[in-house]
């Protein structure tokens, strides 16, 4: 069971309290009616599915209830960082150091 740091509660808590919520930084277009079918398809369905550091969303569903973002290495399952929803994408080189 993973331990996850909730940036809202500022506590590291067991995975059981959290729910995964898909890839992060996939913004819903401000005016969906203005986007093409291809753009809408990309928003709905196309995900990066990376091997390595993955930007993803979690919700502290059995805690504060907030959605937040995380960077998790899909190879090691290590969380590199968590940060509030809406905050900019953290810099991977800083996070991973030499491993980036």
């Amino acid at each position: 069971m993973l331990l996850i740091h909730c940036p809202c509660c500022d506590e590291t808590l067991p995975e059981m309290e959290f729910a995964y919520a898909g890839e992060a930084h996939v913004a819903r277009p401000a005016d969906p009616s203005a986007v093409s079918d291809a753009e809408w398809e990309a928003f709905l369905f196309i995900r990066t599915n990376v091997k390595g550091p993955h930007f993803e969303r979690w919700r502290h569903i059995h805690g504060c209830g907030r959605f937040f973002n995380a960077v998790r290495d899909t190879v090691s399952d290590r969380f590199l960082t968590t940060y509030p929803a809406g905050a900019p994408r953290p810099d991977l080189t800083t996070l991973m150091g030499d491993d980036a």
Partner: protein
Amino acid sequence: MSRFRVPGMGRVDHEAPVKFRFDGVHYAGLAGDTVASALLSHGVHLMGRSFKYHRPRGPVSAGSDEPNALIGTRRSRARAEPNTRATMQEIYSGLRTVSQNKYPSLKFDVGAVNDAAYMLFSAGFYYKTFMWPRSFWDRVYEPVIRAAAGLGVAPDREDPDHYAGRYLHTDVLVVGAGPAGLAAARAAAEAGQRVVLVDEQAEAGGSLLSEPSVRIGGKPAWDWLAAELAALERLGVRVLPRTTAIGYYHQNFVALCQRLTDHLADPDPALPRERMWRVRAGQVVLAQGALEKPLVFDGNDRPGVMLAGAAQTYLNRFGVRVGDRVAVVTVHDSAWFAAFDLADAGSKVAAIVDLRPEVSENLRDGAKARGITVLTGHTVTGTSGRLRVTSVRVNRLKDGGGLGAPRQIDCDALLMCGGWTPSLHLFSHTKGSLRWDADGRTFLPDRTLEDCRIAGAGRGLWGIADALADGAAMGAAAAQAQPGTVPAVENDRTGGGIAMAELPTDRNASRARAFVDYQNDVTAKDLRLAVKEGMRSIEHVKRYTTNGMATDQGKMSNINGLMIAADALGKAPPQVGLTTFRPPYTPTTFGVFAGYHRGGHFEVTRKTPIDGWAEAQGAVFEPVGHWRRARYFPRGREGMDAAVARECAAVRNGVGLFDASTLGKIEVAGPDAVEFMNRVYTNPWTKLQPGRCRYGLLLGDDGFIRDDGVIGRLADDRFHVTTTTGGAARVLNMMEDYLQTEWPDLDVWLTSTTEHWAVLALNGPMTRDVLAPLVGGLDISAGAFPHMSVAACTVAGVPARLFRVSFTGEVGFEINVPARHGLAVWETLMDAGADHGITPYGTETMHVLRAEKGYIIVGQDTDGTVTPHDAGLGWAIGKAKPDFIGKRGLERPDLVAPGRKQLVGLLTEDRSRLEEGAQIVLDPKQPKPMKMVGHVTSSYASAAVGRPIAMALVEGGHDRMGETVYVPMPDRVIAAKITDTQFHDPAGDRLKL
């Protein structure tokens, strides 16, 4: 005294005989024995038959790595367990054990014919032999294989034991209580850490239990051990014997299975049988030691052939000689010491065969002093004996290659040692990388991301002094302390050796029965054949041969298998790589995984405030999500159909009462509540006046229906949203997601109120007669409070939110009262309606009534690929709104294409009732496979309509009104006419009464 027991030796209690049975025969062992040691003390080696060839087998080890000696243990019909390792099961008075996989008896087994047919069962035989004809699989191959192969028999009664679970947080967890683990625990505890020390054996000590001649700190090993355990207790270390670390998970989360009663004659029934500890450790020290490898040669599986270290353990720990006349074959020094101990205890050591040309002087001297024949530079090429080894075939290894003439050496036990390999399993669970040690020809642990250290033999160190020193160093490091002094060790029998693939032979290698994996009956020949037939990856070789895939997870076979496969591939072992070790480390009961979560505790059962009343009335319940809901209320001996027909009639003609408390409820409040509702639901909300309700439809952004429900506007800035029973949590999560991450600018609060309101649904033409006298502060006449109204009032003196809504097509009210008043109001309504024949009804009647009206159930009549238009709900879309969830999705090319499956009604021509889920075709005479154009989603008998009714999703259904479609069933084809989905009162006049 049993014949092979050595008086005064071992840690067993020679004054405490323990009687048990094996295959119906009574045996006496001693307190402290395992089943294996007790049987061996009587000279019984034959304990089972092998999985595939039914070859006679005896214990090859003395521990949890045992592949052969698997037995059934039994207290009662329900308390029985197959595949127990005789080397781990402690005996207790009255224990009953049986051998497995034999018919009719262990000593004469007809399944052993498989052994004669050996050539048929070689690598990949599952894939080759049973390819065709296909019909043979069900009728011939599978029943025969199941009867002939396999392990023990599972009990046929529910497990009466209970299993416990606990969480534990500790600074340092030490796995393995041998010298390295003991030293690590001591060092960490002395540095002030909270320490847990676990060991799978019945007592702590590890290799010290088999090496009593060592002296530590001036004391005999076992005195030192007792003093050390006392010191650990004083330091507050929690020592858990009979506790196996079965899995090592992320962030130092380690699962431990503790066995509490399997060794007790008469366990307290209050005790759990086993306990799962879920440990989160700051630091982990793995001190699991090393596993001895068998040697691979023809006949290496005959009862009496066992690991040299196991024989040493049986002698020193249990006081049991494994034979009178013992031969040894080895490539490692350690087997020599086992031979010396046996010779000193009175067994004749017939010969020590060592494949190495030279061994150290002290080994030669030790053998000479005991009169043991030494055959260095020799190999073993076979064994003889039917149910027990009687002799071993030995050849000299010629200098230039090739073998000398064979000679026969008589023996009743053959000890083998192929060297030692670190126990890498738990380390591998952490995804730790391994390093190939070319000198030791073994894999060693290398790097892991976990806060984990390996101490002692687990990282390739040999000998008790090194283990103690390394353990102390690792324990101190885990505690971030300086290592203390380590006690001096005398008489430490260290040594080294080499590693081999299969042993050389002068006989036809393709006929050799040289086993690598004893439990799955995989031979060296099988592995070479797999490579020859094209398997290149070790993972493919493993699956093709099943090497390492038995319940022992290849503890003995993985490294030998790798060596042979690498040799066959012409590659170095590290280039071939090791297969993956996965949890659990040893076979683990389902019971301990389930723990408390069984029966009624398997998952939560949510109950409404009316649940107890319904139960007292004899309601039949059904699960809906986690809820249990009253399905119908049978009277007398009524079946479901009769009860539902009676309940339906009561609602259509009089008045019925339904517990709708499970409806999901979400309070949406705040200055931007109406804007939020406009964006989330398809419908327009701006013009909905407070006090009015609307049917709301929720889509995903892909345009498909997710949920629905009636929504009341309580005030300009407040909505009472209802969701489907099963969808409540999902809808709230989706709303929170959009609110928090897409529209954080909206000032809205979302609150789940599902469990705060009991919802009592009164329906039927006489509803108002029952309700009106109980309502305070509100005129509920048709004119003052029309269909789709909501208001606050009191009902039976209790504050209520009263909705005039209907899911039946009759006049209906949903009375929301605080949950704690739900039952009282329900009972008041039942009393008040008695004169009107008020009838409680359940979910089945609710389903019939709504289907007669064509009201959909999301998840039954929709399946996640249905749009509002498909479901005939296009009217619920606020087309003028700039955006809502799913609006753009509805424009997707596939969603506007013709030929989509659409929801329609079906009436069968022969008035039979269709089966839900049945497939629909347009032409029943077309050749198979027929083109299926849809399926039946809902189907009920309907008294109101006078015939069975059904709803279905049918391709282009809306344009097929009046057409006939066909439902092929196993016995006939049913013709049905496509109709509108509103079967009853299509104009909705009855709602307006």
